C-alpha cells in the first residue's frame, strides 16, 4: 500500500471517529429510545413517571440543541471492524485518537481522561492506552464509539464463580444492582458476560450492552424481572423500572471455572457506528 493510501485512510478514520462520537453523545440508538419509551408508558409510580418525563424531554432537548445529553461524556471505548484490504497498523490507532481529540474540542466533550496514579488530566480524552480499541475482522470498515460514563461503570463487578454455581449467576447480577442502588443513574441497562476468562468475561459484558435491547431471551427476561423486583426505580426514587434490559454474552470456559462479569450502564446507553468512507 502506498503512503498516500495510508494518509487517506488515516483521515477518513479520524473523521468517522469524530462523527460517531458526536452522534453517540447527542442521540440515542433507536432500540434504546424504544425501551425507554416503553418503560415510561408502563411505569406506575407517579414519582418515577416524572423522572421518565424528564429523561425523555432531555433526550429531545439534546437533539434540538445539538448538545450532549449528559455532562459526563464518558471515556472513549472504540470497536473497529477491518475489511481484508485494510492493514492493521499503528496508524489506525493514531487515527482513532485524533478523532477523539477533535471531538473533545469541537462537540465539546468533558475532558475525563486522567493518569490513574498522578490523576493528571490530559485534557483531550486520550492517554496511555486510551482510547480503548477493540478490533475484529469484518466485511465493512466501521468504527463504533461507546462513550462510557463513570457513575454506572463504577458499579460494575466481576466474580469468579464455582462451576457448581451456574444457578447462582442471576443472584450475582441482582446483588450487583442492589449494591449499586441509586448511584448508576437508573433505569439501567445490564450487560452480562458469562464464561471465557477473567478479562474475556468483562469484555463480553461490555459488548453485550451494544446488542439490540428490544429483543431478550427468556434467560435475560428472567434476570430483568428479578432485578426489577428490588424496586429501586428511576434515580433510586422507587418504581417498576430499576433496569430497562439485560443482555447476556457467553463464551467457552475452563471446566474448573465460571467467570461472570456485570457491566452496568445508565439509561443513556450511548453508542454510534459510522462506516469509514474510503
Amino acid at each position, binding site marked *: 500500500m502506498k503512503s498516500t493510501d495510508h494518509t487517506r485512510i488515516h483521515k477518513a478514520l479520524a473523521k468517522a471517529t469524530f462523527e460517531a462520537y458526536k452522534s453517540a453523545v447527542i442521540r440515542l440508538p433507536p432500540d434504546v429510545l424504544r425501551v425507554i419509551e416503553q418503560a415510561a408508558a408502563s411505569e406506575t409510580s407517579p414519582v418515577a413517571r416524572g423522572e421518565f418525563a424528564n429523561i425523555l424531554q432531555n433526550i429531545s432537548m439534546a437533539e434540538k440543541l445539538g448538545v450532549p445529553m449528559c*455532562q459526563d461524556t464518558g471515556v472513549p471505548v472504540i470497536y473497529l471492524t477491518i475489511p481484508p484490504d485494510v492493514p492493521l497498523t499503528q496508524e489506525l490507532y493514531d487515527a482513532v485518537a485524533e478523532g477523539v481529540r477533535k471531538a473533545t474540542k469541537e462537540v465539546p466533550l468533558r475532558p475525563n481522561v486522567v493518569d490513574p496514579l498522578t490523576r493528571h488530566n490530559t485534557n483531550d480524552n486520550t492517554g496511555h492506552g486510551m482510547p480503548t480499541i477493540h478490533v475484529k475482522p469484518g466485511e465493512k470498515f466501521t468504527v463504533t464509539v461507546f462513550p462510557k460514563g463513570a457513575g454506572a461503570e463504577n458499579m460494575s463487578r466481576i466474580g469468579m464463580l464455582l462451576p457448581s454455581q451456574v444457578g447462582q449467576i442471576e443472584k450475582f447480577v441482582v446483588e450487583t444492582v442492589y449494591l449499586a442502588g441509586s448511584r448508576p443513574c437508573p433505569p439501567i441497562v445490564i450487560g452480562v458476560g458469562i464464561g471465557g476468562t477473567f478479562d474475556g468475561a468483562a469484555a463480553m459484558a461490555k459488548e453485550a450492552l451494544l446488542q439490540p435491547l428490544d429483543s431478550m431471551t427468556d434467560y435475560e427476561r428472567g434476570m430483568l424481572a428479578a432485578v426489577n423486583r428490588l424496586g429501586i426505580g428511576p434515580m433510586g426514587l422507587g418504581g417498576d423500572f430499576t433496569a430497562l434490559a439485560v443482555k447476556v454474552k457467553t463464551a467457552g470456559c475452563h471446566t474448573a471455572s465460571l467467570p461472570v462479569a456485570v457491566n452496568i450502564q445508565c439509561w443513556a446507553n450511548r453508542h454510534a457506528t459510522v462506516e469509514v468512507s474510503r
Partner: protein
Amino acid sequence: MTVKTAKTAKPVQLRTPLGEEVLALHAGDHVELSGLVYTARDEAHLRMQKDGIPFDPNGAVIYHCGPVIQDKQVIAAGPTTSARMNELSGSLIEKGVRALIGKGGMGTRVRDELNGRGVYLAFTGGCAALAADRMTLKGVFFEDLGMAEAVWVIELDRLPLVVGIDSHGSDIFGEVSKHSDAEFARYRKS
C-alpha cells in the same frame, strides 16, 4: 411499596429566595424552581467552611452540580451525587439555606438537619441538556477551584424537580432503600 407519593396534578411553582413555603412541601411533590441557585461540590463546600459563604444564604438554594461552561454559557449541567456532601451541608442549612438540589438522596444526618427548615430536591441524573435549556449563567465565585468545583451563580427557569426529603422527616430515598433491603434479603433466601 410503602412509599406514599402525593401526586400533584400540577407542579408547585417555587421562586428563590425561598421562605416558609418549603415547609408545606411533602416528599413526592413535583415542583418547578425558578430564580438563582448556587452550584457547589465537595471543594466549594470545604472552601465555604474555611472562608465563609460568598452569597446571602438566607432562603438560598444549593445545586450539587459540576457544569460544563463555555463562553459564559451553561452547556451541560446535570446533578452530581449528593451523598458526597452528607457531612458538609449542616452549616449551610443552619445559616438559612432552604433547599439542596442533587441526585441520589442524602444521609439521615441531612434529613435531620432539614427538619423544620428546608427540603432536598431531586433532579434527574444525566438530564444535562434539559437543565442547560432552563439555565442562564449569572456569575461565579471561587473560580480558582476549576470549572467543576467553582460556585456558579445560575438563574433557573422552571427546573422540574421532585421533593426527595421534606422538612417533616419523610425521605423517599430512605424508604426505597429500606424496601430494596427487604426485597433483596427475601430474594437471597429463595
